[in-house]
């Protein structure tokens, strides 16, 4: 029995931490718990949620994708450039997602065919991609899209419904939240219900055993990176809709938070698997912390420090949980 309680406590400690953070913010700033602010947190988290969902596939496959920042930017840049050149929003968005998929294709080609490690490959892609962005934008100038169509603007800025009028109680449910929920639901279905999801986890845990069980290891590694690239490009497109412009290197902002969110999520899972509900909790964690620190009036740079500390804390909890998971397995092997 004690063996069961141990890892479970570690598992839920992330949840306790989240609760503690909420309670502290609620005390420090009464506005924090207002419906208006909570809906705010959701809209502010939508883009990160989509990025983190994309990354979840790669981490489930046992890899890492640092180039999500690039997929994000390439998606935004392609969409903005195409629309600037007069293309309709829908084909522009689809082609932009395709551009993100292409980034994933490039990564997985090097990983599967050249057999480089995901970390090094995607780090390289990150450098190359960000340099290309700078070249395309004369050193990093934002690309404005003044005449953006209504439909495109609705992606990131449109509201599904608004309740109440005054500032504090105004509930604004953004369309982007719906996109994030839809993407998350689809991803969750893929990971938890399908043959692809099951076998992706298998290869992520023990690649050789998965391969020798007939799991198409290479194909699914490919899929994971294609999904990650495409989904992160979608997030970038929504981000560019929010700003009605493409701001170079903005994907970077999401990179560490997304990784942190996915790891929080896997620490909540019994098997230590990256999973969508967990990832979303992780995303909310970051959303709540950012929002609460903001309301408490803390300096922006200190907010980053706080986020960094949180990531460390969570990674520590995760590795502690992993150690506990491993321990019984070791002693019982007779």
């Amino acid at each position: 029995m004690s063996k069961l309680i141990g890892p479970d406590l570690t598992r839920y400690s992330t949840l306790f931490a989240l609760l503690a953070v909420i309670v502290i913010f609620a005390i420090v700033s009464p506005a924090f718990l207002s419906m208006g602010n909570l809906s705010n947190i959701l809209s502010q988290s939508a883009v990160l949620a989509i990025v983190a969902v994309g990354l979840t596939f790669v981490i489930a496959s046992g890899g890492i994708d640092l180039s999500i920042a690039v997929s994000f930017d390439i998606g935004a840049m392609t969409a903005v450039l195409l629309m600037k050149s007069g293309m309709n929003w829908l084909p522009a968005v689809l082609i932009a997602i395709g551009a993100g998929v292409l980034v994933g294709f490039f990564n997985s080609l090097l990983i599967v065919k050249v057999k480089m490690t995901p970390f090094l490959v995607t780090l390289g892609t990150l450098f190359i991609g960000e340099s290309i962005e700078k070249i395309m934008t004369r050193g990093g100038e934002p690309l404005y899209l003044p005449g953006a169509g209504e439909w495109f603007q609705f992606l990131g800025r449109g509201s599904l419904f608004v309740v109440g009028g005054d500032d504090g109680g105004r509930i604004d449910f953004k369309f982007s939240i719906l996109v994030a929920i839809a993407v998350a639901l689809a991803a969750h279905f893929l990971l938890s219900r399908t043959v692809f999801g099951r076998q992706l986890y298998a290869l992520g845990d023990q690649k050789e055993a998965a391969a020798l069980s007939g799991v198409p290891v290479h194909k699914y590694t490919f899929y994971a990176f294609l999904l990650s690239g495409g989904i992160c490009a979608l997030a970038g497109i929504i981000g560019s809709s929010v700003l009605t412009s493409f701001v170079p290197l903005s994907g970077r902002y999401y990179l560490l938070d997304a990784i942190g969110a996915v790891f929080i999520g896997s620490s909540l899972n019994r098997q230590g698997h990256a999973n969508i509900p967990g990832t979303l909790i992780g995303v909310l964690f970051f959303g709540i912390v950012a929002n609460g620190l903001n309301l408490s009036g803390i300096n922006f740079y200190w907010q980053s420090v706080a986020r960094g500390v949180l990531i460390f804390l969570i990674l520590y909890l995760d590795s502690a949980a992993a150690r506990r998971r491993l321990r019984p397995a070791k002693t019982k092997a007779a």
Partner: protein
Amino acid sequence: MGNEDFILEMSGIHKGFPGVLALNQVDFQLRRGEIHGLVGENGAGKSTLMKILAGIYSQDSGEIRLEGHVQGRLTTRLVEKLGIHFIHQERQIVPFLTVAESLFLGMEPSFSPFKFINRRQLERQAEAVLKDKLGLNLQGNRLISELTVGEQQLVQICRALLHQPKIIVFDEPTSVLARREADQLFRIIRDLSSKGISMIYISHYLGEVVELCDRITVFRNGARIDTLDTDGLQVEDIVFRMAGRSLEEQFPAKNSQYGDPLLTVKGLTHRSQFRGVSLQVRSGEIVGVTGLMGSGHSELAQSLFDGDGITAGSIEFEGRVISKLRPQKAAAAGIGYMPEDRRRQSIIGTMSVRENITLAGLSGISSLGVIRRKQEQGKVSSLIERLGIRTPGSETAVSNLSGGNQQKVVFAKWLNSGARLYIMNQPTAAVDVGAKAEIYALINSLIRQGAGVLLVTQDLQELAGLSNRIMVMYRGEVIDELDGHNVTADELMVSMMGGRSE
């Protein structure tokens, strides 16, 4: 209480693992300065006993006395302090350290109060110690990775000697040594024994054990069968005690009604491991493949499933030629592979029993790529019951199961995938005795249902007890084919060494 003659007394040691009793009331006594051999089959209990002595496991009941003093709970660190040291292949010393560094690893401060290590001084010290303790001339600045396995072992022994050991345990020390190195090791062991150090010597090479040891304790099925003086002892006496009378009963009666050929291999050649291998497995037949370590039989088993490294030859399964064999193709065609290294190649430790069982046969319980949960659960439950997999439930992580039950999960995986040919690479390695017989019964039931088995193993009893035909490999080639129905372990041994048995 304790007898003065004995440096170590372990009495009434009891140790159970989920589903198996590893040690049943075992008594073991080690005299001062004696060389005491431990023999028994894999899983007989000798390793478990030593792991208890090493502080890796703790006994469920029983008492350990060292020099007459009852010991409480042992830990690996405490054991070392008490003067008990273990020499074995697996606990390798760090390969990129020098001889001197690995010799004094963790003891550097004794040379300088400032933890400042004088490299040259350390190396000279090491050379002196090696010469003095073992009569060995070895340069202190050589890297461990540059040494032969035998030399590495001697460094380990020397390291143990620096700690004023009372007992040294040798676990399969000669299995990878050249003859000359083994002789050198024996000389050293005898020398240490004459200096009053007690030694426990575990080995499968019975001839060597009789020659070297003063006394021998034989284990079988988790029990101590006998402790014998080696004076005038014959190897046959030990074998008889190791195997016991249960040997015959362990193996089910052989099937001799074969069906159509399942697997036909012609002239299969690997990049480096084997050449020109031809064999056939029919439905209802068990074909054994064996050889000395490194003969290519293990690689053959895996290549017949994953196609890795194959440069020539043809593989035909159920009448159809499979070109460019890949694991996916093999699994889809109806071939199941049970790898040698279960933990790394066979099971997904973190995943549940259910997920492991259905991993290779998901297409049968899914539509349009979506898994039908109910159907999966039903199949898994019936397989757990049918194979007698002892697990708290289908959601238990498979790493929490005992070795034998993990192997049964692997059987279930291929049963569920609808495999008709099973390639088994050392199927009972690291499986406890009780589960062994169950696995043999399982193999037999597969055969009776028309499956074919390619049994790759170095366990000669298993090979002779199960196989209809036995192919013997030597240096990458099949050099012999023996009739499995009336073959003896001796004939097999001769053939494996490269000599024709006819």
